[in-house]
């Protein structure tokens, strides 16, 4: 049975929706339809966090809480979840995070405050230890122009002292019951010729995809939704992959890491930590917690941005993609990007899985350079994979983002280095060769000159780090 409405819990109430336009964001729904104006719009592009709310999802009978940017989340993405807004958490009695914000003078103009409160609420519900690093991680997606953050960080540091249990802990059972009551079948919303399809499993997805026309796949929506909020476009029909359990998995098999294309990046980080720690570290700087809670590798690759951070890392790692249409095919990532923002994906094909080889005897490192350390787009990104035997370079991949129209290997440099000794002299020579590999652009993020110098210097950094077996960075 296919349903024609979505169901979600808004704060305490189960809500069913089918008539609202499929391009409406959660933020606009809250503010315009529900007159819940506590959640603010600061940018409508996922960068400021003023619109932060928290979702709760049911996983193995447990509630998982995630902060999200409601400005770049479509309303229909909420199917099967609970949405918690700032008005609700302290309805009867101020929530610990709210009281802590007041007592630590965490608000000035107050416009960013609901967003911060909800980001902290997300942290609180996940029982994150309030260390300086963790606070920075959980607040990186929230901008405040007034306070200078010190007072807000103090509030986060002290929030647990106001009690570790809140009304959500108390009401857990009721919420779980309510979430369980929501029907898990496929949903197709069909209004004004715009469709929003939520497949519940892979088979249905493959089948229905063939029937629909003029649609776009939607995963986290952290890229696609901006077409609506920033370019005022209309997206006719959407197929939502975000809820699909068959696309949301992480397995390790036969020396491969298999990642379902719709797996949120945040879920991947803990697994990556053991395999490629440098990759995992980079992901902590990928957008913000709100972005990573929903953003996927599939979406990052499919958007084919020359400055996407996953692509060069996956390129260096010789990854491949399982692409699903009527049939499934496997494509090496090197063949995936065709030109600026173009991929080999054909009509109605989607990425099902990313297959990442686990190289046990290689060294993998990646570096992200941006104006601001947290939540910024790379000006230059580089990933290295090095197979070194007795100081001889057996094999090496050097993949760059931000240096060309697509993510790209530094093939001339690689060619020069492979078979040579891994020593300062060779690295020094290869620094000059990189210049022949790329002819980067100048834009608002960096000049071509800077990109050239940094790409050379990062090669040197990689060399020094491997050589000295320690990293020498400012952080």
């Amino acid at each position, binding site marked *: 049975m296919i349903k024609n409405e979505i169901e979600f819990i808004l704060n305490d109430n189960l809500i069913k929706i089918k008539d609202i336009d499929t391009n409406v964001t959660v933020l606009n729904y809250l503010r315009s339809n529900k007159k819940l*104006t506590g959640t603010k719009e600061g940018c409508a592009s996922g960068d400021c966090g003023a619109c932060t709310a928290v979702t709760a999802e049911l996983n193995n009978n447990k509630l998982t809480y995630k902060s999200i940017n409601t400005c770049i989340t479509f309303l229909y993405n909420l199917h099967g979840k609970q949405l918690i807004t700032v008005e609700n958490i302290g309805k009867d009695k101020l929530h610990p995070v709210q009281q802590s914000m007041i007592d630590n003078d965490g608000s000035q103009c107050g416009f960013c405050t609901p967003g911060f409160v909800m980001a902290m609420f997300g942290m609180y519900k996940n029982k994150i230890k309030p260390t300086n690093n963790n606070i920075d991680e959980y607040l990186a997606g929230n901008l405040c122009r007034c306070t200078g953050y010190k007072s807000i960080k103090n509030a986060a540091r002290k929030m647990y002292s106001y009690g570790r249990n809140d009304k959500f802990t108390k009401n857990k059972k009721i919420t779980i019951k309510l979430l369980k009551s929501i029907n898990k079948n496929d949903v197709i919303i069909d209004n004004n010729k715009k469709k929003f399809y939520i497949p519940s499993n892979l088979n249905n997805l493959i089948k229905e995809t063939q029937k629909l026309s003029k649609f776009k796949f939607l995963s986290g929506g952290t890229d696609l939704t901006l077409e609506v909020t920033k370019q005022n476009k209309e997206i006719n029909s959407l197929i939502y992959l975000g809820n699909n359990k068959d696309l949301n998995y992480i397995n390790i098999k036969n020396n491969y890491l298999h990642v379902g294309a719709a797996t949120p990046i945040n879920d991947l980080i803990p697994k990556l930590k053991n395999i490629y720690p440098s990759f995992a570290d980079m992901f902590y700087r990928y957008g913000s917690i709100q972005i990573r809670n929903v953003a996927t590798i599939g979406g990052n690759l499919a958007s084919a941005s020359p400055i996407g951070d996953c692509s060069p890392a996956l390129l260096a790692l010789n990854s491949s993609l399982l692409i699903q249409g009527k049939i499934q095919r496997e494509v090496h990532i090197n063949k995936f990007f065709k030109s600026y923002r173009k991929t080999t994906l054909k009509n109605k094909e989607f990425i099902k899985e990313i297959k990442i080889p686990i190289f046990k005897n290689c060294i993998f490192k990646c570096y992200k350079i941006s104006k601001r350390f947290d939540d910024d787009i790379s000006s230059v990104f580089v990933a290295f994979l090095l197979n070194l035997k007795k100081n001889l370079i057996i094999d090496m991949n050097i993949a760059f983002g931000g240096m060309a129209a697509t993510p790209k290997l530094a093939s001339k440099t690689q060619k020069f280095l492979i078979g040579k000794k891994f020593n300062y002299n060779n690295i020094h020579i290869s620094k000059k060769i990189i210049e022949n590999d790329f002819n980067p652009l100048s834009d608002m993020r960096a000049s071509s000159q800077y990109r050239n*110098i940094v790409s050379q210097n990062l090669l040197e950094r990689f060399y020094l780090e491997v050589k000295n077996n320690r990293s020498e960075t400012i952080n």
Partner: protein
Amino acid sequence: MNNKIKLFSIKKEHESASKHVSGKAKYADDIHEPKNLLHAAIGYSQIAKGKIKSINLKEVAKSEGVIDVITYKDIPGINDVGPVFKGDPIFAKKNIEYFGQPIFSVAATTCELARKALRKAKINYLKEKPILEIKDAIKKKSFVLKTKVIQKGNVNKSIKDSNNTIEGELFSGGQDHFYLEGQIALTIPKEDNNYLIYSSTQHPSETQQIVAKVLKQKFNSINVRIRRIGGGFGGKETQSFIFAAISALLARKTGNPIKLRIDRDDDMIITGKRHDFYYKYKVGFSNKGKINGLDLLLASRCGISPDLSGAINDRAIYHIDNSYFIPNIKLVSYRCKTNTVSNTAFRGFGGPQGMFCIENIIENISKYLNIEASIIRKNNFYQKNKNNITHYNMKVEDNCINEIFKDLLKKSNYKKRKKKIIEFNKKNTILKKGISITPVKFGISFTTTHLNQGGALVHIYTDGSVHLNHGGIEMGQGLMTKIAQIAANELGLSTNEIKITSTDTEKVPNTSASAASASTDINGGAVVNAINKIKNNLALFITKNYKYKGKAIKYKNNKVLFGNKSIDFKKLISLAYLNRISLSSSGFYKTPKIFMNKETLKGRPFLYFSYGAAVSEVIIDTLTGENKLIQVDILHDVGKSINPSIDLGQIEGGFVQGLGWLTTEQVSWNVNGNLTTHSPSTYKIPVSKDIPEKFNVNIYEKGFNIEKTVNRSKAVGEPPLMLALSTFMALKNAVNNNNLKAPATPENILMALQE
């Protein structure tokens, strides 16, 4: 100590804190929407300079949901929102002067439909070559205002006679305000063609005046009101006018209420920013680094119109000395016209740009002489009894920079840390550290003398509860909290008894912008004045009613005390009412002592100065230019604080905003003059991680205002921003090259390292 000071140093959180955290605090966009509300959007120029060849808005008008479209032709009054000088058209007629210049506006049934309709406009342009660089403007003598020159002593001679001279160029960057609440106005038509405008503005009175002129109506037909705004920082001092004006024009034309809330990107494109500056200097100094003479050219990017650029550049001139006595000076100030958005007020109002210059010069002198920069700074400070006259002839009477500097050097362990850093830098080739201590002396008062006035309206109701309004805007600075404390203190009540409602041109007229850090001084002064008038009425009543012959009447702990009597405040008030005593009054305040000559710029533009100092320690990565702020120590003078937690918030927030200006925040245009950093994805203000783990902020305990401000407190809004100069100087110190440009992005750092 008297009870006044005791009351003021108790902790009092922001009056709206509990509403902020629960989403109950209402901003303009949260106001209950009136029936038949329409939403507006603005169509703007896609080129930087040229002429409109043809414009076709038919498809826009036909677009779904669109009710009306307006252009310059629909303006009954003047097509200009320029505050002091003209030059800021609401809609371009034919000439386009910057990328983002508004051309038309639509009203539609929803915000989304209004924005969608804009894209259907067909406008053809005749492109012309824009002036985009300050240096280019100087070459072409393209200025928005007359060049100003200020002189003291004999510069040429003093430089010639100096043992050492250096010369060079410097650059400081622009800055977007990035208030979290974007520009917004909601206009509601009332009877008799009157309009009520909720505008997110720092300046309701001027909004009222300008909208009236645009509509060709009397000032008394326009009412501007707002309870709070989500940040301003100068960006809503004049830049909010155009949005109020357009919403009013559409409300007039359609007869419907109009909300104009613009998209963040459009906000960043349409509105002005902090002026970036170019400086060329020649300085002569002794072997100890004592400055003898400074010959300086200051040129700023004003954009297409004067806006507030006159006063901003004046303030840059007034702060070129920072805390230093410069015996001979010649300063030429160019106010350049460029084909970029008209730049405007931004926290510090030119002061930061002035201080940026002198602090760099000091840093360069230090490098040249190889003497620690803090010593050079000390050697040049204003003194108490000599060397205390500024280049604009004002005597520095309240100097405490020597003490603050000394205290902070000690508190921060500066010398030891400096030594350690020298050691670190010897040992490390890739990572380098730097440290710097810089002072701040910032003049308080509007430099346009007549703006230094404030008004208030106070009512006491018969139950003893108090309602008040004043001319200031609550934008996060805690103004309402401080004013409530002041009123409570004057009446001996708790702040719970004081209600302050929306700032409203119907309540308090002819106000000045909430700017120049002076809002508490002038509005607080006016509130005290109003309360004193009511107290005078009450005193007469007490004299008559209780046959009290004395003069002393005290208001304390909800009681009124005189002679040996003690009466409940509430009881006195209800008695006074029954005896027909007026319990309501307006109040007024004007700042004493100030004057200046507009031509020579000499005089006493400021009532007093606020002081402070900061130490920053940084580390840079010489391979990439990435950098990190390791530690900051601040000691800042707020006089006798009315509310220490609010003042600390201003100091911390001001510092971090300055930090952004000098490090990650880069405003950039492409070769065609299109702004390329128009969203938070490309324009990066500091986030949580950018503040140092060790961030020690202290209020200078001995602070005291020698002028008679409320509680002898000092203004705190702007001055702390300039404390962040210490971070830039520390980075410069780590880079060890004079040519570091601001903002010190990784790129600018790496480029300076290449030289």
